[in-house]
Structure formats: C-alpha cells, structure tokens
C-alpha cells in the first residue's frame, strides 16, 4: 500500500543514488589518530570526561553533556588522549575536540557488559537510561539524543513508533544500504525502542524508490508482522522531514511548535534503530555509523561504516580519493547539507553523508544571480509547510517582525524547496535563517533591556528609599534636637 503524499507539496528531485546503495557497505580501517568533536552536530558542546594522557578503550566515556540535549560520547578505539583542542575560530575547524591516538589493539572498556543485553528483562524507564548511557543519538542528521526523545514521548504517552527510512534527500543512500544489508537490525532496534516506549505499534516508512530496502525489511519484519509494518511513501522531497513523514503515514499534522509526541508518535531514524540493535546485541555503545561518501568529486562513491572520530579525509580516501576539482565538502545532502571548511575534522554522529561537490554539481547555484522577487508563487507551490515564502521574504526584508512571524518564519523547516524553484534565484532559506537569527537577537535584546530596566528601576527605588530614610533620620534627629534643646532655645524664648 502506498500512502498518499499528504503534506502540501515538495519536490521530485533526481535522486543520484541507486547504484551506490546496492553495493556492500565498506568497513573503514580505524585511523592512527581520531578526532572527537565536542559538538557532535546537535549544537550542544559536550564536557570532556577525560584528561590529556588518559588511557581509553572502546566504549570508554570521553565526554558528557551538561543537559539532556547532548548525547554521551564514547571512544571508538583504544589508546591515549593526546590533546583536547579548543576551538580555532579563525580556522573554522569544526570546534573543540578530543584527539585520541589509536594503539591499534581495539581493547574494549572492561566496565562494559559482555555479550547481548536482555532488553526484555529491563523495565522501560531503565532501558531509556541505558540507551542514554550507550550514547545513542539520532543518526538521520540531527544527532539529538534518542533517550531524551523517548523520555519526552513516554511523558506524553506517545505509543506509536515511526521508523524513518524515507531518506528523501538526493545523493544520500546510507539508510537504503543499511536497510538492505542490516534489515534484521532495523527490526530488532524497532523492538527495543518499542519496549522502551511501551509502544503499541511500529511503522517503518520507506520511499517507493527503494524497492530492495522495502523487500528486505518486509522479510525481516515477517515474524513480528502484527506490530511492525512497512509502509511505502512517495519519493517526494522532503518526505523524510519528521513532520511531513508523520503526516504522510498517519494523516495527522504535528501542531506548530509542537512535537510528533503531541499526536502520539515518536519518530526515529532506521539507522538509529539499527544502532540500538547493535548495542543490544553486543553491549557496546554507539561508536560507528554508516556514511555515504559521494558526489562528482570522489572517484568511487560508496557507503562506508566508520568509527566516530575518523578524519573525513580518510573517508574520502576509502571512496578512492578526490577527483577533479572538489569545491565543497558537504556534510549531508545537497539540499540541506552543511558545507565544511576542512576535511581534517572527525566523523560525528550527525554526518550521514559526505557529499564532495564539484562545479558540475553546483553549476546552477554558482551561476545564480539574484534579482527582485516577482511574486510568481513557485515557492508557495512547493513549500511542504504550506507557507507563502514570498511573503516571509517581503516582510523579513522590510524588518517587519510581526509580519514575518505571522507568515510563518518559525514554521519554516529549512528544506530549501523554495530556493530550488525561485526564478529570481533568491537564497530564501538563508534569508529565513537570518531572519530567525535576527528575531532571536531581537528577543535577547528585549530581554536584556527588560533586565536593565528592572535593575535601573530597583536602583532608583533604592536610592529614593535611601534618600527618604536619610530624610527621616534627619527629621527625627532634628526633632529630637529641637525637643531637647527647645527650652533653652533663645529663638523660642523671645
């Protein structure tokens, strides 16, 4: 059964992925030196839990978050911490990181449980805690800690699990390859997550352009067909965006500023599910992931499994090295990926694809000349959030904050569909990001101003009170002085 494409519109894009997804996933040999970024891509900077000189093993905790929005980070090789580097902003090097020298022995951390984890024996809340300690995070690109998402869903009694295997963005095919090669793990991960959520059902959603993955998962899910089902969704970008997928599969909209949990759904990537299964089978925390290395700028595009911290240059070498003139090294796909400044940074949990783009891949974008908006409405036709991007652009340009908010600048999911079709070649997604940043800064400034005003008012009041108190003291003193001296005062005597 193919679910109808329920969100407003989206784009049908050239996928660029079929041949690569069919090839086996190549294991990349661990490098001599690994670099673990303290920001694994979720925007939260972790606190190092090790010091320079410490000996670490596979699965040793090397960094922890200070709140629930980061995931615990573990060493993916055994060896010694040789440096904890701070951020070099001038070099745009990807932020602070822990550098580990690999001793090549792959010693597991002795504190880790040996062998499979009997997740059915754990009570769900404990299971969530264990997933948190295992460092499981969203491998679809967000890097958000899975345990936090599960805890939120549990608090809101969201009993439906949705495994996102849509993988809608062009060039990316790591999930496709994983679903074909490790379908059993995806299903096992689904079971573990269902246990953690006390979920009633699990739907695995896959776009209709991945028949091999659909077949593999249908076969793997056969034994649990009563609770785990595979749903086919149309291959439309951005089908894999969380909200849009929830709508496509369940026919309900996630409320604005709400979460899928508000409509009883928890969404996890299929790669995250497979990572949960790996942990459940071995007890080893999350230390590797599958990455698509692709683009016209690499010799032999392929999917690799690599340890976190592996320098991106090593991944490119695994794909046969650079080819031609690579212009951009993009972490993610060509619609939403982040262009990195250097390939020296280490692999993080949120990098699902390394897209090495040459002029060939970027031609139209590089040749773009921005002209004024002609309000043609192409952007509104494709916006999957049902927005009028032309109106957000107009209001943001005029610095009309209320207008931009009313037209939905916060409802924008940053998919870039509007950019793609704009004949005026306006970088709309970027403008909306800037507008949101401007609005945030405006709110911060307003908050600062409010604090300053309160502080000023309190100070004024204190000063007034001090003056008043002084006056009172003076009055009392004068009264007393007068009272005491009155009889002898020559003035009153006259």
């Amino acid at each position, binding site marked *: 059964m193919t679910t109808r494409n329920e969100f407003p519109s989206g784009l049908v894009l050239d996928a660029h992925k079929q041949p690569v997804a069919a090839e086996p996933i190549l294991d990349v040999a661990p490098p001599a030196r690994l670099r673990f970024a303290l920001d694994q891509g979720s925007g939260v900077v972790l606190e190092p839990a090790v010091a320079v000189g410490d000996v670490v093993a596979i699965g040793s905790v090397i960094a922890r978050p200070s709140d629930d929005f980061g995931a615990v980070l573990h060493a993916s090789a055994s060896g010694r911490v040789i440096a904890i580097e701070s951020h070099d902003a001038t070099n745009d090097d990807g932020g602070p990181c822990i550098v580990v020298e690999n001793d090549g022995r792959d010693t597991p951390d002795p504190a880790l449980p040996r062998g499979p984890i009997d997740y059915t024996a754990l009570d769900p809340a404990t299971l969530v805690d264990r997933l948190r300690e295992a460092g499981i995070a969203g491998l679809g690109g967000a890097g958000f800690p899975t345990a936090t998402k599960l805890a939120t869903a549990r608090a809101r009694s969201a009993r439906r699990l949705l495994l996102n295997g849509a993988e809608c963005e062009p060039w990316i095919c790591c999930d496709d390859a994983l679903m074909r090669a490790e379908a059993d793990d995806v299903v096992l991960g689904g079971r573990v997550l269902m246990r953690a959520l006390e979920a009633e059902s699990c739907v695995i959603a896959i776009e209709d352009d991945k028949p091999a993955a659909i077949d593999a998962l249908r076969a793997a899910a056969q034994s649990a067909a009563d609770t785990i089902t595979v749903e086919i969704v149309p291959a439309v970008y951005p089908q894999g965006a969380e909200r849009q997928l929830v709508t496509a599969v369940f026919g309900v909209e996630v409320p604005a500023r709400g979460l899928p949990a508000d409509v009883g759904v928890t969404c996890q990537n299929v790669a995250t599910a497979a990572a949960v299964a790996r942990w459940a089978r071995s007890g080893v925390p999350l230390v590797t992931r599958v990455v698509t290395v692709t683009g016209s700028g690499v010799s032999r595009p392929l999917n690799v499994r690599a340890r976190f911290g592996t320098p991106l240059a090593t991944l490119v070498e695994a794909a046969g090295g*650079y080819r031609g003139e690579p212009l951009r090294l993009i972490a993610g796909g060509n619609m939403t990926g982040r262009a990195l400044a250097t390939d020296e940074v280490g692999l993080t949990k949120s990098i699902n694809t390394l897209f090495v783009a040459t002029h060939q891949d*970027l031609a139209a974008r590089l040749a773009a000349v921005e002209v004024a908006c002609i309000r043609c409405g192409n952007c509104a036709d494709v916006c999957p959030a049902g927005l009028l991007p032309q109106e957000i652009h107009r209001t943001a340009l005029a610095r009309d904050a209320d207008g931009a908010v009313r*037209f939905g600048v916060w409802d924008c999911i940053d998919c870039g569909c509007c950019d793609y079709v704009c004949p005026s*070649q306006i970088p709309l997604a970027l403008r909306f990001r800037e507008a949101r940043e401007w609005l945030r800064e405006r709110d911060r400034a307003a908050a600062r101003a409010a604090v300053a005003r309160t502080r000023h008012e309190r100070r004024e009041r204190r000063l007034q009170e001090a003056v008043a108190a002084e006056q009172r003291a003076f009055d009392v003193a004068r009264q007393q002085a007068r009272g005491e001296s009155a009889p002898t005062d020559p003035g009153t005597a006259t």
Partner: protein
Amino acid sequence: MRFDTSPAPHVIAGYSVPRVMFQVLLALVPVAVVQVVVLGPGLLLQVAVASVTALVCEALALRWRQRPSLPTLRDGSVLVTAVLLASSVTPLLPWWLTVLGTAFAVLLGKHAFGGLGQNPFNPAMVGYAILLVSFPAEMTRWPVPFGVDDSHGWGELARLTLTSFYGGAVDPAWDGYTGATALDSIRNGLEQRYTMAELLARGEVVGTLGARGFEWINFAALAGGLYLMARGIVRWQIPAAVLAGLLLPALVAHALDPGAYLGPLTHAFAGATMLGAFFIATDPVSAATSDRGRLWYGAGIGLLVWVIRTWGGYPDGFAFAVLLMNVAVPLLDRYTVPRIYGRARD
C-alpha cells in the same frame, strides 16, 4: 584541504526571470501573427516603437536611480510590458502616443514604485489607461478587420496603418476601413435604441464565435495562454477566475434579457478577453499572491470587465478592471493567507 562554506541548498533548478519573460514573449507570437493578418501590420510597428521606448526608459530610470542597468535590462520584464501594451492598443495608434504610453508605463508604472517586483499596478495597463483617458479618439479608432466586408484588402489595411502610424491625416475615402470595435459599436447601438437583434443582424460585428476578426486574435491568445499554463508559468487560478467572473454574469444577464445583453460566447471572444485573462491579469507582481487570493482577484477583474463593457463608456474594460483590482491586492493578500502546516485555521 580547504573548501568553500556557502550555505545550503547547494542545488537549484536554475529557473530564471529572463527565461520566464522569454516564455511569455514566445506565447505572444501567435497573437501577433493573427493580429497582423486580421488587423494589418500595425502591431509590428507598435511593438517595435514600444520596445525601443521601454528599453530606453528603463535604462534612463536605472541611471537616475543609480542601479546597475545590465541585469535589469536583460531580465526581459520591460519587453513584456512593452509588447503587452503594444498588443492592447489599436494598431493605428500614432507612434508618438505609443512612445508616450510606454514611457508612462515604464517610468510611472514601474520605476516610480521601485522597479521590478515593487510596482503595485500593472505597468502596461497604467500606460494604456493614461492613453485611453487622454486620447480617446485615437485610442478607439480601430481598423475594420480584414475580410469583414469586401471593400478593402490587406494592402489597404497596410497603407491605412502606415498613414495613421506616422500621424498623417487619414484619407476620408478610407472612413469605411476604420471604426469602433464590435463591443464599442454594440454599446453605442444599444444606446441609440437599436435592438440587439438588429445590431447582430448587421453581420459586421459578430462573427462565427465572437467579435468579427477579434475572435481569431482571442483564439490565438487562448492558445498562447494554455501554453504558458502547460509550462507552469501561468497558474490556472487567475485566467479561470477572470473568465468565470466575466462569463457567468454575462450568461445570466443574457438568459434573462437577450435583447439587452451580449451572450457569454461573444464576450469570451471579443475585445481583449483572452489576452487580458492569460497575459495581463496574470502579471504576478501586481496580482494577489496566494491561490485563493488569485481566485478573488481574477473574479473581480472579470466582473469589472463585464460591468464596464455593459454600462461603462469605454470600448473595453480590462485596463480599469486590472488597475482597480491591483488596488485591492493588499486587502486580498491580507485575508487569503493559506493555512500553515500544523496551525489551526484562524
């Protein structure tokens, strides 16, 4: 290695404003061909004069506004304005009026408001309206379409066009070759207490489908418009709403009193109906921007066209209908914002 860190998305379809404008010009070719056949070669002269004037005015305006001129001149938008204006006026218009109208369209209609994308009014219709109210005689003198009677051939049409174009006095002997358009003469006839049946029976005004000669121009515009729709440049909402707004009242009125009101078919294929519905009302800059807003916008134009054609004092109502609805656009845009995903309808 070091890489460029430009923001996402890293790929775009490569649509461009010049390409959109070029498609619009391409879709106008059939209109031009048919008009030249039916009304003589005047259109070609009008297009040439309007285009040159428009480019010169745009270059001057950009200079005054201290804006880079090449990218804007190349985007083709000013040529679309020029060609639409040239296609709307009578092919007999003296050249200096074409220059004047185009200059008003570009300078007042477009650049006074900030150039491409900023103009609240359809620039071509600004130029047209100014000409119509200032030079009603010249603007309403149309050639009698080729083939309506046997008195003149295409050669006479061409000679008449050239004489009139250069502003020369038209030979009184040619009086029979010029006149009001079908819509105009029907209205005048009704005012003179002729019955609709008498007017239609004259034969020279209403042809096979619509107004004699103009019906074919309208067919060509319809074909061009459907092409633009197929290319995704024009969405169906505005043309459909314009036609519905014009033809539904015409149908009802005609059914109630066929002696006083023209039928919908005549309206559909007379005057500027198809050109207006597909090419003029659809200017995205000055139109409502949401799908629902475009329906209201188009319906308003269609209704106003019918009202002006039926009771107004002008030969056709498109220019004023479009300009009036341009004024209503901010209001329409305010109340037709589509529901945003995940939000309740407010």
